[in-house]
């Protein structure tokens, strides 16, 4: 239960940390830390307006996205605390819950018939397809290292602390931070701040949603980002503590993910769209490399 609550808290803080980092790095005071919560409260207090060309599918999407993100968050452990829901193979369930949320959003976007949303959906589908192998190599690597396929048991079993494992874990955390950038629709893959429909990826699919629906989608994407950040933090934290990381380390590392995202967004421009595919494939290739590395190591190392 604690880990689930932690993911929800992280979801609330992470956006604030990213915004604050960006503001400070650009020499501004920035909005208050929880401004995004006020914005969402405003959205949630509004009704919804639907385009007459959309159907039931379009209306169901926000609920599906939020439900998928929350369910995925249930599977994420936090440091010493096990996930609320854990079973062998929950890593696969986690990946496909994220994919479900993405698929729902794509279908909803296509349902509007808008040319912008069609383009956004096609981009999102491409990036989703390219990042998925990366995610699975990442999970595969964890499974190979520990012999488990559940986050809770994986993080419990990690932390052998051998130098080789530290290298691999750092690599894995690096990969997962990049996955956060891709999945969260942040710079350099996507620009959450842009008002230019033609360049949007994630935002454009939300263009036809307003009020409470937009609020649900926003909260869903926070939870998704927070879940991934917690997994990344858990991976790297497990190296530090013997037999499981301390809760404090995980907290600090999740905050660090926010700072990293904010810093990346401040100091570099977005990719040209046709280079995003290369960027994402690189992330997946790194994950494959990590997987092979662990496989080779496992031939020599004492891994059960």
């Amino acid at each position, binding site marked *: 239960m604690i880990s689930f609550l932690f993911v929800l808290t992280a979801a609330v803080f992470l956006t604030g940390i990213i915004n604050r980092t*960006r503001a400070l*790095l*650009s*020499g*501004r005071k920035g909005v208050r830390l929880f401004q995004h919560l006020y914005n969402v409260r405003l959205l949630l207090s509004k009704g919804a307006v639907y385009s007459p060309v959309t159907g039931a599918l379009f209306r169901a999407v926000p609920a599906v996205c939020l439900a998928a993100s929350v369910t995925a968050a249930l599977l994420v452990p936090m440091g010493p605390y096990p996930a609320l829901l854990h079973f062998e193979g929950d890593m696969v369930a986690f990946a496909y819950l994220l994919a479900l949320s993405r698929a729902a959003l794509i279908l909803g976007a296509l349902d509007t018939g808008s*040319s*912008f949303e069609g*383009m956004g959906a*096609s981009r999102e589908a491409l990036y989703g397809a390219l990042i998925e192998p990366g995610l699975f190599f990442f999970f595969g690597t964890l499974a190979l290292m520990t012999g488990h396929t559940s986050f809770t048991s994986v993080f419990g079993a990690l932390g052998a602390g051998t130098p080789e494992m530290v290298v691999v874990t750092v690599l894995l955390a690096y990969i997962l931070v990049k996955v956060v950038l891709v999945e969260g629709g942040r*710079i*350099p893959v996507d*620009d959450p*701040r*842009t*008002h*230019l*429909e*033609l*360049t949007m990826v994630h935002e454009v699919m939300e263009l036809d949603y307003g009020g409470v629906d937009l609020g649900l989608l926003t909260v869903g994407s926070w939870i998704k980002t927070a879940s991934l950040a917690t997994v990344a933090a858990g991976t790297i934290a497990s190296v530090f503590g013997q037999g499981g990381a301390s809760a404090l380390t995980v907290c600090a590392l999740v905050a660090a993910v926010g700072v990293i995202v904010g810093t990346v*967004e*401040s*100091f*570099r*421009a*977005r*990719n*040209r*769209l*046709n*280079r995003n595919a290369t960027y994402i494939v690189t992330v997946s290739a790194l994950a494959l490399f990590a997987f092979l590395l662990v496989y080779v190591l496992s031939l020599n190392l004492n891994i059960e």
Partner: protein
Amino acid sequence: MDWYVTKNIRRAVPTEEIPCWPYARFYTETTEKLIEGERYHCALYFGVPAADGRGLIFYVLLADDATGEVLLASWKYGYYDEEEVPSLTARFPAMHPFEREITEQFGIRFSGHPFDKPLRFAQDRADRGLTLNNYPFWRADDPSLHEVNVGPIHAGIIEPGVFRFVCNGERIVHLEIVLGFQHRGVERLMRETGNRLRQTTLAETIAGDSAVSHAAAFCQVAEGFAGWRCGALDAERAVAAEMERMAMHMADTGALCMDTGYQLGQVACEALRTMTINTTQRWCGNRFGKGLIRPFGTRFPLTPEKRELMAGNVTDIRRRYEEAGQDIFTSPSVLARFEDCGTVTRQQMIRIGAVGMAARSAGLKRDVRYTHPYGAYAETVEHNPVVLEQGDVMARAMLRYREALQSADSVLALLGREPETDLPEPDFGRRWPGNALSFVLTEGWRGEICHAAVTGPDGEVLAYKIKDPSLHNWYALSLAVRGAGISDFPVCNKSFDLSYCGHDL
């Protein structure tokens, strides 16, 4: 009679001295000039109802970049004439906005016109049946192509305009731009009021980001009718124009960074732009220089205290902008977005008659301050334009950077001169002479601005014509994005930063 040849100086040209040819000769003579390509471009081509009310007279102003001369001629379309006349656009695409405007305003058809579509959806257009719903967009019947319509209402705070893309997946095959939503009838308002102050303030609103340049153009037209000039006043106007150029180039550098998601460059440039326009505000009370430029004089002479303050600010801005630019143009992620994006070749720029910084970014040395020097540029400041060859977004961004620094240097040089003690007060009372034409070419931050006024027998204004450089350069945007990714359109658009209302008038 041959071409009437004059220079870009303030003087009233008697209309009877301008040759009035039959259309056939007009066509041949104009063709002979325009066929040289780079040397001549059409600065203005417009119709005026004849003073006797019988027929229309069409004046053309050709700018000769080699000699700094301006060539004037006209042709008459009689009261009973009905036939179509051969289109110049068919041979010289650069003529398209002018001929389309003439068709729209007077209903005269040009045979063989390849792009015979309305230029603006003005209320006083000849064909009232046309609306956006039945606008004859180019269509794509190929099933592998799809159309994307953007506008006329956009996200953000930009002006209205329709961009119709024909795309193959993410790649743009063709972009068609439809404007006119900002039409306010500025030319008619300018023509109908005899109130010089109102005309000046109207000129300031032609394009809000070029308030100084357009107001100065109007004032020079008014002063041209009187053959009046004042060197010290010209120097102060040049300071104002260069401050405007600095501010807009910095704003656009920042906006380019914003469109590529590069926050650091964006905030640095936005701050500097604010400093620049605030300096203008310290001078005249308005950040955009409204109220500063008035005919025959000024209410805000540059006192020694103001000169010192402005020189201090500009020095500081220049230093900081140079630092910001060095950071922006050495960031690999920014260069990856700017370089080789939205390229327009030199040949294309010549064909479409591009002017100003868009032309200079593609190796075309077209700068009124250099080719047709006027005011302070003819006397005190020797201007040497920055010309880059690549014609891509990078070239346009770099051109802005270097021109802004150059402008800062010009401002500092002008401010360093001995201040003039007695500058005249503005004079709104002078009458314009009869049967005369006064024109002026100036270089706004976008490029060549041309204003011209034609008066009737009693000095009444028959036509007041305004040309913002955007009129030519919008087509460059269409060419720039051809074959590019549709997601690169915003950054290409911003690299030109053309005016909607300057085009729509």
